[in-house]
């Protein structure tokens, strides 16, 4: 056994569930996630048989399609030591909601529970499982952090990103008012109830503005695209990025919003 093989043997094998939005809209977040996981000592795999976690179907009440998608995800990922997603919402779907889809089907329920136990949201996985304290990144920025709802309330993610951001040299965190209040995205809600969603995100963007930050971060691309879309529409130059990009020191890609264009 060579020394690199010995090292690999000790490394936890992580399946990266990129999430559909990261996969389609912002691959940079995927690469930032890979870097953070590898730096933390993980062996990262990206199974190709991944599409979406099934939330659009789940939250529309379509249990049959949700279950089929869940089976597909479990089959593709259950062989890994951990399954990690750069999104509180999708990670919570895998971790908290999958087992319930199989209620009454003992074999699948057990399989889903074993799978769910290994699922984590990226940032909390780094801090709570891999015990990362400092990602070694540096960035001169006044940032404000939005707590996305599912991550916050279903997975208890609040301090973890702040701890890591606190150790990014040059970063100053400026908390916005009501950082823990919904941005109005809510998956299909934002198109089904477009006017209400707009009222909610308008409030959120107001709080981002008054925080005095020049960069908005969050851990969920859906929320980020919603807030970025509103900031852009309003002509704001607040830069919007996924927190993983900053923690990985990968901010060369143009932001989701901002930089004045």
């Amino acid at each position, binding site marked *: 056994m060579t020394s690199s093989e010995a090292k690999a043997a000790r490394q936890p094998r992580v399946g990266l569930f990129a999430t559909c939005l990261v996969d389609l809209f912002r691959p940079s977040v995927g*690469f930032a996630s890979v870097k953070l996981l590898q730096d933390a000592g993980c062996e990262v795999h990206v199974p190709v048989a991944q599409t979406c976690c099934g939330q659009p*179907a789940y939250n529309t009440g*379509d249990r049959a399609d949700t279950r089929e998608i869940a089976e597909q995800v479990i089959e593709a990922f259950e062989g890994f030591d951990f399954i990690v997603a750069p999104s509180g919402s999708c990670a919570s779907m895998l971790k908290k909601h999958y087992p319930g889809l199989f209620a009454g089907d003992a074999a699948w329920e057990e399989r889903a529970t074993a799978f769910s136990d290994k699922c984590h949201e990226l940032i909390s996985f780094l801090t709570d499982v891999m015990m990362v304290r400092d990602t070694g990144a540096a960035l001169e920025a006044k940032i404000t952090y939005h707590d996305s709802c599912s991550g916050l309330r279903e997975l208890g993610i609040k301090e973890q990103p702040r701890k890591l951001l606190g150790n990014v040299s040059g970063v100053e965190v400026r908390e916005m008012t009501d950082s823990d209040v919904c941005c109005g995205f809510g998956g299909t*809600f934002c198109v089904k109830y477009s006017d209400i969603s707009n009222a909610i995100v308008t409030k959120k963007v107001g709080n981002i503005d008054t925080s005095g930050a020049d960069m908005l971060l969050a851990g969920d691309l859906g929320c980020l695209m919603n807030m970025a*879309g509103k900031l852009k529409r309003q002509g704001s130059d607040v830069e919007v990025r996924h927190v993983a990009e900053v923690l990985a020191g990968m901010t060369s890609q143009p932001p989701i919003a901002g930089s004045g264009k």
Partner: protein
Amino acid sequence: MELTANKFKANASKALVDAQLQKALGNVEKGFIGKRQKAADALPEFEALRDNARDIKNHVLAHLDLYLEEYERKVLAAGGHVHWAETAEDARRIVLEICKKAGARTVTKGKSMITEEIALNDHLSANGIEPVETDLGEYIIQLRGEHPSHIIAPAVHLNKEQVEGDFRRVHTHLPEGRDLSEPVSLLSEAREVLRQRYFAADVGITGANFLIAETGTSVIVTNEGNGDLTQTLGKVHVVVASIEKIVPTLEDTSQILRVLARSATGQDMSVYTTFSTGPKREDDPDGPDEYHVVLLDNGRSAMLGTEYQDMLRCIRCGACMNHCPVYHAVGGHAYGSVYPGPMGAVLTPSLNGIDETGQLPNASTFCGRCESVCPMRIPLPKMMRHWREREFERNLTPAVARYGLKAWAFFAKRPKLYRFGVSFAMPLLSLLGGTSRRFHSLPLAGGWTRHRDLPAPEGRTFLQAWAQREALKQETEQ
């Protein structure tokens, strides 16, 4: 009230551009949230009390028949009467009969959502009996011919200038030059007017926050004392309450009381917590000659044993709507039902059927803030999702959403086909995004782009880019 739950979207759009309403709604966010948080933080056992409260109600719901019978026995033993009402119509008829028998011309009312649910005021008025709301908020909306927009703050949708206008319009016997610029002057004027009504009323009708099986007691919590005057000054006191208000013992009641006011208004306790057991006894200095309880089912027993049973733990504190971003945006009337906000979005379909109310459980971002503050730990988002499932099963989901979802699911369930499709679509969409890297409008994405830009995708999908990177790495390693 007329159910307009399925006009929620249209109601909401109107509410969003109603400047008066939007101004008033600011008070919900400012008034309730911080106070609840402070009260919860000040009590180290608050979370444990929430667990206890949940467990007490779960126990009651598992043995509801036994506790209801025990409660009835105790009410009868105390000299009261118990009336079982299966439907809203039954309850209206029973209350009217009691009022007629008492020869009532006017009745005073304590604040009660259950009498809103059975539309009691309209029924009494139609039968020549005048109902007088005595809670300040209820009194105001009665003057305006409106319904409560919030379960504990019925007039929260109004500003004080609007109330001043109503008082001047209705209280024409008072001097024109009086000062009504402050809430306190509005309150004292309402008190003065209402004081006369208490003495004139023949019957007092209240709801109940709890019905205690151990003692046959009904409990109301108020901040104005109007409920006490309503139930002690009339010759007859009628309690209208739904069957899930039962708690086993006084001790259980005090446990739940400790989370109720804290969750509702941030008070340790509301100003008045009043226990009523039967009519006036010989040695009592005051109290009604007759004490009636109308126990309303109206669909609740059908919720037992279903995935909606947990909703019957609700103690009507209003914390869910106080913390709901959707409620903050549109207010309570937009829901078009007796019960607004997250608790209404779950309960209304149970009471009125999902066909007529499907909009409500859909109008949620599932942010979960309601569940996080519910003193009874009711999983509100989960139950809203269950309602969406019932809709989907019965093809009630709007066609566009249904077919859109089905088309998406077709691809999401076929990773290879999905990969093939998105490997062309995303780079193309990225190109279309141009140098501004965003879309101001996009076909089929109007719901999104009406109010915000759509950030353009970067180009290749992550899985495409990853596969290329891995292939390159293997090449260089070889």
